[in-house]
């Protein structure tokens, strides 16, 4: 334990330079602004800044991206409270009680609650990351191709089942993402799959251009349809968080933090699922249920704590299993790979200091977010009123730069456009994007481990179902699929309710 604290101290020391702290400040500020502006998302922000940080040393680059991520998830609460429009999907739950509080003349108090809830949530998540990552890494070191295959399949299936909406469409999106990942040269014979003679297609579909398209361009198109935003709230009361709010709702904070971390760990669910689940749990357990939806301090605190704690939660599977817990975490994982880091079970062996650096980065980003939470209130109101007609074209220009910069291929800009169109259309057709992106991210991992496993077993599928961890993962995958069938889940619930009566 002392060694760990020493390593953490070394990591902190490495970041305490004027240059790094300057990067922390501008990145957190930019993240909060991105999160606050409706139409811009955390995923888009992290994807675009991955390009900007391409030439930075890897620790500096990941630090900037984490600050953007943490700031953007927090920033969405600003517009949720002041405009009744969530800045990011994760802040949708905050509108339910944040905006009514603002209408009651308590906008400042609402922002103070969201700042304290978000800060505490991230701290809780960091603690869980520090405790769980070494344990999960140790466990994952024993995984072979058979287990890694099922982890990839489980990730895609769970994202389809649990991300909200129609699970069947979730599975279609997931398998579409997996299929898209097969375009290009395959690893055994370098055969060019689905390239149709085009050299660019033979190079495959880049993850970053696809993400920028699906989360950037699609949002630009959606934003141009939306109504013009007007600020209703002009007067802001005191924004300093009250200690009595934190002490009164400490159970809610812990519960929401735990829910947020758990949902963050589950692949593809994301911060919005964490916020809603924490909110719903708080309402169920609350003694003041009637206040929820009308300006409940507890409701706002639960939503903000849950979404904030899911940020470190989503990074846990990235570090241990190379499995992103959310879309921004998927981009973060891609950025780590671009910078030569190898997320997954071997990361703790190859670069053990990086684990401590991640903890230090999250802590520094959380403190920076707390500072800006007090300082940025009034300036942010002005920023929120920038017309979309002026903001969206600038965002699109940045999306083009982001798509092009990593590999310098104009083809990637076209990929971005195509995925922007796919993302927009899929949203209109009530598809969740998370399974598609997860399929794209995990496709390579799934295929390599499937074929490697089959080579190891001489073509037999038996080890995929008989090795202990593989069997458990296979069973969980099958249960997830079956549970998504309404007839099966209703039947199972009926069976469980009948059993106590017959016993």
């Amino acid at each position, binding site marked *: 334990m002392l060694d760990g604290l020493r390593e953490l101290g070394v990591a902190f020391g490495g970041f305490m330079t004027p240059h790094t702290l300057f990067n922390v400040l501008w990145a957190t500020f930019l993240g909060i602004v991105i999160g606050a502006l409706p139409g811009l998302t955390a995923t888009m922000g992290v994807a675009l800044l991955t*390009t*900007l*940080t391409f*030439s*930075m040393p890897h620790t500096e680059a990941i630090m900037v991206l984490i600050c953007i991520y943490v700031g953007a998830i927090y920033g969405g609460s600003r517009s949720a409270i002041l405009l009744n429009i969530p800045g990011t*999907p994760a802040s*949708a739950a905050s509108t*339910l009680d944040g905006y009514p509080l603002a209408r009651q003349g308590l906008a400042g108090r609402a922002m103070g609650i969201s700042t304290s809830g978000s800060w505490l949530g991230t701290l809780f998540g960091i603690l869980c990351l520090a405790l769980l990552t070494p344990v999960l890494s140790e466990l994952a070191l024993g995984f072979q191709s058979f287990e890694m295959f099922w982890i990839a399949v489980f990730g895609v299936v769970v994202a389809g089942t*649990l*991300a*909200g*909406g*129609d699970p*069947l*469409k979730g599975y*279609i999106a997931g*398998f*579409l993402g997996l*299929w898209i990942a*097969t375009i290009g040269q395959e690893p*055994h*014979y370098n*055969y060019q*799959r*689905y390239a149709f003679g085009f050299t660019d297609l033979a190079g495959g579909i880049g993850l970053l251009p696809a993400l920028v398209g699906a989360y950037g*361009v699609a949002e*630009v*198109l959606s934003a*141009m*349809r939306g109504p013009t935003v007007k600020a209703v709230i002009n007067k802001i009361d005191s924004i300093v968080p009250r200690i009595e709010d934190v002490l009164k709702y400490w159970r809610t904070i812990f519960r929401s933090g735990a829910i947020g971390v758990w949902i963050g760990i589950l692949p593809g669910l994301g911060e*919005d*699922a964490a916020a*809603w*689940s924490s909110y*719903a749990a708080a309402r169920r357990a609350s003694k003041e249920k009637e206040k929820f939806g009308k300006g409940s301090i507890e409701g706002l605190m639960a939503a903000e704590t849950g979404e904030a704690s899911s940020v470190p939660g989503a990074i846990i599977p990235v570090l241990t299993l190379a499995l992103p817990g959310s879309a921004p975490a998927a981009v973060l994982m891609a950025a780590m790979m671009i910078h030569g880091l190898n997320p997954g079970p071997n990361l703790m062996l190859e670069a053990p200091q990086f684990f401590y650096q991640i903890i230090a980065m999250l802590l520094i980003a959380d403190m920076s977010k707390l500072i800006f939470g007090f300082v940025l209130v009034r300036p942010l109101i002005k920023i929120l009123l920038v017309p979309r*007609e*002026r903001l*969206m*074209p*600038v965002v*699109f*220009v*940045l999306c*083009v*730069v982001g798509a*092009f*910069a990593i590999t310098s291929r*104009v083809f990637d*800009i076209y990929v971005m*456009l195509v995925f922007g*169109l796919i993302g927009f259309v899929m*949203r209109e*057709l*009530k*598809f*969740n994007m998370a399974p598609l992106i997860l399929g794209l991210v995990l496709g390579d991992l799934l295929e390599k481990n*499937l*074929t490697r496993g*089959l*080579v190891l077993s001489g073509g037999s599928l038996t080890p995929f179902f008989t090795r202990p961890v593989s069997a458990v993962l296979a069973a969980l995958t099958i249960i997830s699929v079956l549970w998504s069938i309404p007839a099966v889940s209703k039947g199972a619930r009926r069976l469980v309710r009948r059993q106590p009566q017959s016993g």
Partner: protein
Amino acid sequence: MAENDQLLPHEVPAPPRTDLWIAVVVFVFGTAAAWLAFRMPTYVEQKGEIYTAPGLVPGIYAVVMVLLSIWLGWRAIRQGALRNQAANLQNNESPPAIDMRLTLAAAVCLLFVVGLIGRVPFWLAAAIFVTMFTSLFEWQSDQPVSLRLRRIGEAALLGLATGIAVTLIFEKVFYVRLP
């Protein structure tokens, strides 16, 4: 998972007729992808194993998509997709009209990528695009001419500032290549 009274936008179900069309499109796409996959060489003659064949994994994905599309289509038909159109529209909503703002935004973005990038310096392409986009969407024919001209001037300033700032920051400060 989202246990709340309000459904998020992607959780609101689509009409059954829409789902049926989705099923048809996915079925056709999946069938084509599967056919192309199974036409790929297997390299068995070169002593390769069948499970390393290039078309195996994408073929499996494509077949799964076909099966899922059949499930979706069957479900849509059970929900009344083949009944008349009125029954397929929920909550008495009218059929969606073409969104002019959306179409215009998409068209201008496409023009930027296909028509400007690579043909003029990036800073100029970005400046023209931002100016055009902002001017088009802020144009209101009922405004006085002086106000309209002022809006165009502001749009041009914004465009120029964007083009120059993005080029300077990305190329000179962060050493990122621009298109």
